[in-house]
């Protein structure tokens, strides 16, 4: 049989993909070229230098905690003191992230009902949504330096509140999306039975969106622990301030200990939080899989 090639359709053009691809590469190249002070020629030095620092960090981590580090002002100081101090400050970071998350959850939850299209009229929705978007757009560090540090001074309360306010924005947006994605049929049934606005929300909306929302709170807690490190740079509490000072002073042994504490505590909290989220979302019958 001889195929009738005339009836075969023509392939669609490929050039749109090529154009988009080339445009992307061009944007990146222009961006690279615009950074005239980037010192690209130093790039090849990075691996060797980073490896050297990492080696010194590892040395600090592996030294017996009872030993005394060299070159420190206090001759009594031991590596063990560094470990304890790092743990205490990391604890403070976790604590301020937790409080920040609580503040975010507490305020975002009721506000989200005023911002969802299925629970609020437009004249409430628009201002509340704008509020969420506005506070999400201000990075925590700016919130900290302009509002929280003048109020609370250089201590963890400032960091906790900066994280808390920022979290209202991001949690509010996620919560309102959860509210909007609930199954409308039970809500309709409750309405048909003569329920008030509040009764509809309590009996038909909240039961549907609560598990996802609590899971988001836990996820936000994980994100906030990382964010708290940034706030340390402006001394708004947590491990960040000391990490900033130690690494900038090139105290690699000390810094290594701090980084290991950060890694271990963060992974530990992540694992616990992931297990809890899995339990909340999927119930007890399935087994959580560690990431």
């Amino acid at each position, binding site marked *: 049989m001889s195929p009738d090639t005339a009836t075969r359709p023509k392939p669609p053009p490929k050039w749109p993909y090529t154009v988009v691809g080339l445009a*992307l590469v061009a944007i*990146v190249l222009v*961006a690279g070229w*615009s*950074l005239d*002070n*980037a010192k*690209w020629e130093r790039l090849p*030095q*990075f691996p060797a*230098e*980073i490896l050297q*620092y990492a080696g010194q960090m590892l040395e600090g981590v592996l030294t017996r905690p009872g030993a005394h580090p060299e070159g420190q002002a206090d001759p009594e100081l031991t590596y063990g003191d560094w470990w304890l101090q790092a743990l205490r400050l990391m*604890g*403070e970071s*976790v*604590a*301020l992230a*937790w*409080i920040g998350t*609580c503040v975010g959850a507490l305020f975002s939850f009721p506000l989200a009902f005023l911002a969802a299209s299925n629970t609020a009229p437009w004249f409430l929705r628009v201002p509340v949504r704008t509020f969420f*978007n*506005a506070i999400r*757009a*201000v*990075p925590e*560090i*700016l919130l900290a*330096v*302009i*509002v929280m540090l*003048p*109020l*609370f*001074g250089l*201590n*963890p*309360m400032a960091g*906790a509140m900066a994280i808390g306010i920022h979290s209202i924005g991001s949690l509010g947006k996620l919560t309102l999306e959860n509210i909007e994605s609930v199954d409308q049929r039970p809500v309709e049934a409750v309405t048909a039975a003569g329920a008030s606005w509040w009764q509809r929300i309590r009996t038909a909306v909240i039961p549907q969106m609560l598990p996802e929302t609590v899971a988001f709170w836990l996820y936000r807690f994980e994100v906030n622990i*990382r*964010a708290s*490190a*940034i706030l*340390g*740079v*402006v001394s708004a*509490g947590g491990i960040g301030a000391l*990490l*900033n000072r130690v*690494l*900038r002073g*090139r105290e690699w042994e000390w*810094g290594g200990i701090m*980084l290991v504490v*950060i*890694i271990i505590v*963060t*992974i530990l909290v*992540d694992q616990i939080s992931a297990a809890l989220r899995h339990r909340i979302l999927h119930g007890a019958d399935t087994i959580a899989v560690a*990431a």
Partner: protein
Amino acid sequence: MSQATIERADGGPAPVRPVKPPPSPLLIGGVAGALVATVVAGWAIDFSLAPVVDQWPMLTMILEEVVHPEWEEITDPASRLWTALAETAAIAVIATFVGSLIALGVALLGSKVSAPPAVYRVTRPVMSVIRSLPDMAYALIFVAVVTGPLPGILALTIFNIGIVAKLTSESIDAVDPGPLEALDAAGATRWQRARVAIVPQVLPNYASYVLYVFELNVRASVVLGAVGAGGIGQLIMLYFNRADYPRLASVVIVIFAVVIAIDLLSQRLRRRLV
């Protein structure tokens, strides 16, 4: 209707009404645990809202200055503000591009669908460790080698690899296994499976993750400058240390506008993708 009138059709005695079960111990434990954690955390950071009242005059003084931003910084296109912002944008673009490209490869190595067990069992924990460090920590280490935009780019690149690789490898875990079986049955190699059946399936998700980290990078590169890694963060620290609140306010306005614009743009793109 009184209870006595309800009778079973077969005339037998009405079954015992079950008692409402108590809330599960896990739920009670969870709520109690959260309360205890909150009390302990509050104690650890000396939680107190008293300063809000005590320090209110201080805040109003600063806000007084903030509401009078230095407009000249914003209107003059050659100002330090715009130069620093351009640097921040360039850092975010390069870090997103390079980081996302590498992350796609890492994601393929990190899923049990695309990689042999020996490979993904190593890749996954390494990814966890990379993600556990905040971008700030990477920036601090890289700044020790050289200052300027380069350490910022590298820090964000690593940060992006961590996030995009994790999310993408989770998408790969969830791809429809049917086409994979078809390719196995057709004698395809591991690479061909990945290119033909896995990548096209996860591409919309991947693109959406890339836009998501670009949003994060614009925010993060604002901050990285605070430790000397280039971009607008350096200005924030400078004005903060000088207590030059009018100039700081002009920075806030610009960042606010840029972040909102990029959020909106990327949300529209992402909605079209998925």
